[in-house]
């Protein structure tokens, strides 16, 4: 096999700058929303004392979870020895880093006192899974950064296997930690479960693979090159397995809670009587995020096509956002049972379903974080060599343009 070569993005001039400026505008809007929230306080958002974590957290946690899974392509190459994925490993690492950065920026911007980030990085309560996660996120940047360097610097290539293994183990711990942020809480009937940590690991693999596919497809289009059918087919098959596994985790979680009588109230709320939450669960998480992608990926007509695989990936991502909304906001909509068995009412909205309507500010903030992740990927693609040269990367026939000189 020929030496593996990567190239920078070839798009330049307006073709490069127009999308980047559009993304920059979204970042600016997000920043404006942040300043608005910071100056006036959170009453300008839709979040209140009943639903304290809203759209920003839904999008941020989705990105953080997907970031871990986006590294999966690189792991499959380095750790599991699937050589066919090797050309895409550097891009996988870039997407992982960008998604994590975007998610963390949203979280930091939504803090009540974001000026105290330094306090957050110097004062740690080690019993808090949140604090432990901060270490895991910083460590992720360091380990994946090193991993990326080892992959791209030929003289360090021999260490990329070890770094890949470290990154793989690290992200399993990290994503279990992220799921446990919710799973450890006894106060909320929709949480309080050991399954949430492992579920998030499985979800992360699905969402990460989906977002990686979307990023890869956009990178091909932007670079003006043909899609690699082989890569799409492999990743499509992988995505299908991961989606099926995600559906299994969801089923296990809810069936367990359904068996336990004390959880009948919350389950009836989420699965049947919860209005938006029920719709997002069945239509979003299960339908759009699970069943529909499986149909697309396993159907002979669409399963191996670019359109089919990318459409499935987009649907999985949308389903993931729906899952995060149900998990995070749905859990808060259901009141804490302070007097189980009694009907409660108070001036503090005890005993009633808590409404939540996201405001423009928090939506703009969230989109700003998404745009930041996109911008980081775009700049990375342009500045460094992430795109595999088609002549050396896959078994598809090379394009008609001449190959780049090996360095």
């Amino acid at each position, binding site marked *: 096999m020929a030496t593996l070569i990567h190239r920078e993005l070839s798009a330049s001039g307006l073709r490069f700058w127009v999308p980047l400026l559009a993304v920059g505008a979204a970042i600016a809007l997000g920043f404006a929303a942040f300043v608005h929230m910071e100056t*006036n*306080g*959170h*009453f300008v958002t839709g979040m*209140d*004392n*009943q639903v*304290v*974590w809203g759209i920003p957290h839904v999008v941020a946690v989705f990105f953080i979870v997907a970031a871990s899974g986006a590294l999966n392509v690189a792991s499959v190459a380095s750790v599991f020895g699937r050589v066919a994925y090797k050309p895409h490993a550097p891009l996988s690492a870039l997407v992982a880093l960008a998604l994590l950065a975007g998610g963390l920026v949203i979280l930091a911007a939504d*803090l*009540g*006192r*974001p000026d*105290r*980030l330094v*306090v*957050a990085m110097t*004062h*740690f*309560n080690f*019993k*808090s*899974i*949140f*604090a432990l996660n*901060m270490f895991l996120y910083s460590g992720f940047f360091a380990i994946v950064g090193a991993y990326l360097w080892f992959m791209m610097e030929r003289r360090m290539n021999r260490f990329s296997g070890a770094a890949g293994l470290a990154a793989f183990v690290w992200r399993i711990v990290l994503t279990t930690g992220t799921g446990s*942020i919710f799973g*450890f*809480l*006894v*106060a*909320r009937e929709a949480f309080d479960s050991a399954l949430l940590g492992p579920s998030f690991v499985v979800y992360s693999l699905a969402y990460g693979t989906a977002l990686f596919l979307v990023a890869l497809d956009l990178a091909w289009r932007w670079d003006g090159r043909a899609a690699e059918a082989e890569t799409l087919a492999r990743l499509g098959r992988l995505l299908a397995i991961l989606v099926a596994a995600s559906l299994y985790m969801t089923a296990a979680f809810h069936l367990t809670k359904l068996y336990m009588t004390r959880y009948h109230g919350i389950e009836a709320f989420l699965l049947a009587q919860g209005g938006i939450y029920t719709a997002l669960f069945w239509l979003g998480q299960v339908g759009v995020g699970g069943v529909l992608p499986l149909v697309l990926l396993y159907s002979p007509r669409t399963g191996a096509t670019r359109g089919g695989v990318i459409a499935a990936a987009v649907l999985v991502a949308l389903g993931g956002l729906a899952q995060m909304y149900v998990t995070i906001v749905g859990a*808060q909509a259901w*009141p*804490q*049972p*302070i*007097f*189980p*068995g*009694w*009907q*409660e*009412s*108070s*001036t*503090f*909205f*005890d*005993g009633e379903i808590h409404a939540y309507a996201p405001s423009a500010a928090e939506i703009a903030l969230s989109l700003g974080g998404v745009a930041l992740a996109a911008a980081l990927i775009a700049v990375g693609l342009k500045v460094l060599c992430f795109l595999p040269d088609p002549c050396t990367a896959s078994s598809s026939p090379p394009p008609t343009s001449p190959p780049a000189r090996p360095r």
Partner: protein
Amino acid sequence: MNDPGRRGFLGTAAAALAGIAIAPGIRLIDLAGARPPELAASGKVRWGLLIDTAKCATGCTDCVTACNTEHGLQDTGRPRTDAQWIRKIDLKDLRSGRQHSAPVMCQHCAEPPCVDVCPTGASFKRADGIVLVDKHTCIGCRYCVMACPYKARSFIHENLTGQKPEVPRGKGTVEGCTLCVHKIDRGDGNTACAEACKAAGHEAIVFGDLNDPQSAVSRRLREIPSRQLRGDLRLDTGVRYSGV
């Protein structure tokens, strides 16, 4: 009875008896108010409340009003985001229709979930059992609000002015019932809610040192049955409820 000696003796004896009767009360008040400013809070003491819901009148919100006034909590006209440190929960038994009322505030757990989850350690338990938020380190992440089974914490959603000097509060941090820590440290010996309830003649809230078997709250806990809210969570709350 014209004998001044006998009268004098009876007077002295009456005064002595009265003194002996009041003395334990004086001693307790002395202890409660006795901590000098340079002394730190002690783990020998554990402050707590007993709420007797049989004495709590549905519709009465004196404890809530007293707390709000004491701490400078203001009504901004936005009830969904306004802080509430204590609220009356109206309860109804679905089967019998029997109605009840109880004030609910931070339960000052011995094993507080809010302290476990706080990333910076801002949510902490003082040596004497009072669970507080150190607003110097609070980053406003609201994880403690997610973690509290009693919905005890509120997030401050707007700029605040006119704070009371003893009760610092500010935008972007989280807060909750402090068991009137500023009053306790000053030696008042009681919380605002308990004082107001007593002034209204209900005496449904009793404050005191749970570690002192002779304190008012400890004695009452021995007299009437009581329980923790969500006792299944094993948080060992400092607030106990009777009659519900």
